[in-house]
């Protein structure tokens, strides 16, 4: 492949960076691209929906809009959170609909260069692997980056 010469004759493009909203489920930190996250909320009242797929925690009311709340612990096969523990919500939009990921805690936005995104480890649990876009090594540990579209695919079939 021949790259067109830039103004200084350099062939290297500027390093590209992306931001990720980090959040915790049990002991693991995960991330979703910041551009996808519409807002972050504290714990909300969720109305359960009988007969819905298990990962659907229910619906919540966001300024008059109906938002489908997905409990990511259930979605990713983690044990239920202990009684009384707090939660937070990351609201994302998919087309016309709003969804909210119910997570244990939301952390900082982490900005890293693209090349720091490493491929999905094959040892990762199957349910995680099918939604994983890659991992980023941070000082505090591994950040598992998730693909929102894949997270939104529930057992009910989209």
């Amino acid at each position, binding site marked *: 492949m021949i790259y067109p010469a830039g103004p200084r004759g350099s062939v290297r493009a500027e390093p590209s960076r992306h931001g990720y909203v980090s959040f915790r489920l049990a002991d693991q930190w995960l991330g979703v691209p910041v551009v996808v996250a519409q807002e972050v909320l504290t714990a909300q009242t969720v*109305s359960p929906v*009988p007969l819905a*797929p298990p990962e659907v925690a229910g*619906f919540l009311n966001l300024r008059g809009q109906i938002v*489908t709340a997905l409990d990511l612990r259930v979605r990713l096969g983690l044990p239920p959170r202990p009684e009384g523990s707090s939660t937070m919500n990351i609201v994302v939009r998919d087309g016309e609909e709003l969804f909210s990921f119910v997570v244990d805690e939301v952390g900082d936005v982490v900005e890293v260069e693209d090349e720091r995104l490493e491929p999905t480890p094959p040892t990762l649990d199957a349910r995680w692997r099918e939604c994983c876009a890659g991992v980023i090594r941070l000082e505090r540990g591994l950040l598992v980056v998730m693909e929102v579209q894949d997270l939104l695919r529930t057992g*009910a079939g989209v």
Partner: protein
Amino acid sequence: MDDLLREFLTESAENLARLDREIVELERSSDDPELLKSIFRTIHTIKGTCGFLDLQRLEGVAHAAENVLGLLRDGKLEVGPEVVSDVLAAVDVIREILDGLEATEAEPQGDDSELVERLARWTAEPLEEEESFDHLFAAAAAARAARAAAAPVTAPAPEPPPTAEGSPRKGRKKTSGAGAPKKVAAPPIAPVSTPGPAAEAAPSAPAEGAERSEGRASVADSTLRVGVNILDLLMNLAGELVLTRNQLVQLASAEEDSVYHVPLQHLNRVTTDLQEAVMRTRMQPIGNAWGKLPRLVRDLCQAGGKRIELEMLGAETELDRQILQAIQDPLTHMVRNSADHGIEAPAEREAAGKPEHGTIRLEAFHEGGHVVIEIRDDGRGLDVEAIRAKAVERGLARAETAAGLSDAQVFRFIFEPGFSTARAVTSVSGRGVGMDVVRSNIEKIGGTVELSSAQGKGTTFRIKIPLTLAILSALIVGTAGQSFAIPQIGVVEVVRVTADDAHLVENVNGTLFYRLRETLLPLVRLTSVLGLPTGTREYGSVVVCQVGAQRFGLAVDEILDTHEIVVKPIGRMVKGIPCYAGTTILGDGSVVMILDVAGIAAMTGAAEEAERAAERSLDSVASAEEDDDRVPLVVFDSGGGSRQAVPLALVSRLEKIPTENIETADGRWLVQYRGALLPLVPASPFVEVRAAEERSVIVFTDGERSMGLAVDAIHDIVEDRLNVEVRSSTPGILGTAVIAGRSTEVLDVDHFLRAADPEWYGAAREDAGRKRILLVDDSPFFLGLLSPVLRSARYDVVTAGDGAEAISRLERGEPVDVIVSDIDMPRLDGFELARRLREHPRLSGIPLVALTGRRGEDDRAQGLEAGFREFLSKFDRDAVLSAIREATTVASDEVSE
């Protein structure tokens, strides 16, 4: 695009749609002057605007059409199929050009000369008006010239180019009676002589101007064009206002004495009114979706060589715009199907003894919060067996399963994707648009479609759609600690069930029923539908829901409230669950699921109950002339392997009584029941009353008297035709009939009532005032069914098997106060009986009541005319008794005079 052009296109689209309708209408009522004027005006308007916008091709065609229409309007040309076809062809070309204009902002290229010529031929007759003007002006000019020049100048007669064919076209023509048709004509397009244009233009221009402004003024005053997106915005805003109002009302209700109460009340009223008004802006008459149909049917007739009458009733019925758009295609498809596959060719119809022209009838009306549209044709109907075979062939069902399906179930295969039994998929009917698309389009807007058909007689489609989508009135209920909303449309009534009403809940073979007055309602617990824990609360409320023609009860813990809710979309992860129709936000901000009553019915056994009954009603549509002997029956086992049944109409309760409470006294079984002693009679010698811990008992009650029929097990409650095939000599058994596919003994309830208490009918025997009823019916079962009912009501009953027997008994001198008769009987039917009695010197005064399964209005009219004072359904016990009571009271009054 130029605003002016856009305006023109929109307006013309409307005009063309109207033209299609009116021109087809014109074919039928060719002498309607208003119609002709309207059509002429419309084309004239189009032509006028074309000139203004310099659309030459359009103007050419419009002008040619206008001339022909002018002749029609003035009565100079008679309306006939060919001239109409030509005008319609012109309309089509105009439409084509407009479409091209919309797409490219320029007129598409094309040669219309053939069409224009065709149209011109119709005007090959003298245009007397114009000609006379020409003559006048020409004569006047000539006279002036003559006077001026004193030289004779012949009045220049308009020299037209010869018409292509000198002879008149096939269409009938009228001359204005001036004599033989002259072959001279002023050509439509290029005016000929000099005085011509001035003459033409001058007198007609003021007329034109006046007409145009007249038309414009009236239309402009009463309507306004508004963009659809603005209406949608209004709708959303009104919805949000409703939600906020609900919230405010809730907040204010928490405080007793708030300064906000009065303004809130006002806000409440205003919001409701606003919301209703906004919804009305979106309402349009369904006739708008029907506009193209007359033309479509006409074209199909021409293409297929058939004759079809299209009837459209209820075109003014209004629906939401969005819904209207959604059903337009399905409706068109169904009408097309009827015309193409349903209605037979005239020869075939005649051979079948039907009128030569087929009828397709569209009827729309409001029914309980829904709009119902029926499309009915009197064509060849659906071939059940062909559909059944095709379903198996397409793998939609296994042969054995398919064989056992009812007609109604088989018809439903038509809605499966990839199914088509059209012997030839004609180009007219089109490919790729299947009935499955029709059904899914209708279901997408929350509607349902059903069909019924009788081979040789016709097919009927019934579409039912909700009136509005977005804002509706709902009942808020609570169960298992959660709240749900049920749209009021599907709710018939709400009943509180307390511990006292426990007996009203019956368990028949595992299915729960709730006895609501005269009927047994299949009962469904909302907690079981939703998989929620039942909880300790046994009782709460029952919401009586209606799905189609059938009802079932939904048991919930409590009824919380009713109010208006805004329907919010349901979210794709939950959309597939049939019991939900949407979501909404209540005044307190909580999100609540809106239940789909039809979905719940489908999910539970209530659906099968409803289906069975619905099928029967569909079948009865097909066989409406037959006397309907279907009766609800309680079917049970009485030991010894035999199945038995009694009519439900006589049954008061179904009980399970602990045998330890059953005592014997005086050789009879008795049990303490609701504060009195209930005699028990075993239904058969095989029933050992005390053999188990509990005994199933069917309780019959008459006033204060009750009797319990002890049986082994109550099996089911079914509705079936009763043909007692094998009469029985065993006391207590009327005979054997096939019920629900099994051989079943029908009990003689009379016998058992008397076995329980010989005095059952006793006391009244001394009553001299006891009236006598002559019951006439050819069904011994029915006689056996009704007699105890009448006797319990303190009447004496004598019976006759048909009209002839009835008359001979009466003539023998048997005293009778009232005659209650069936209609369909051998030898002498009910109508004949009535007529004979009317003419009889002695017997004509006896009141006559008809009891029949016939439900038609014509039958009723005929019956009343024959002399029956009442024409009632066989199974409406209360109505029958009150009619008899009335008849006997009047009779005794008459007698005592």
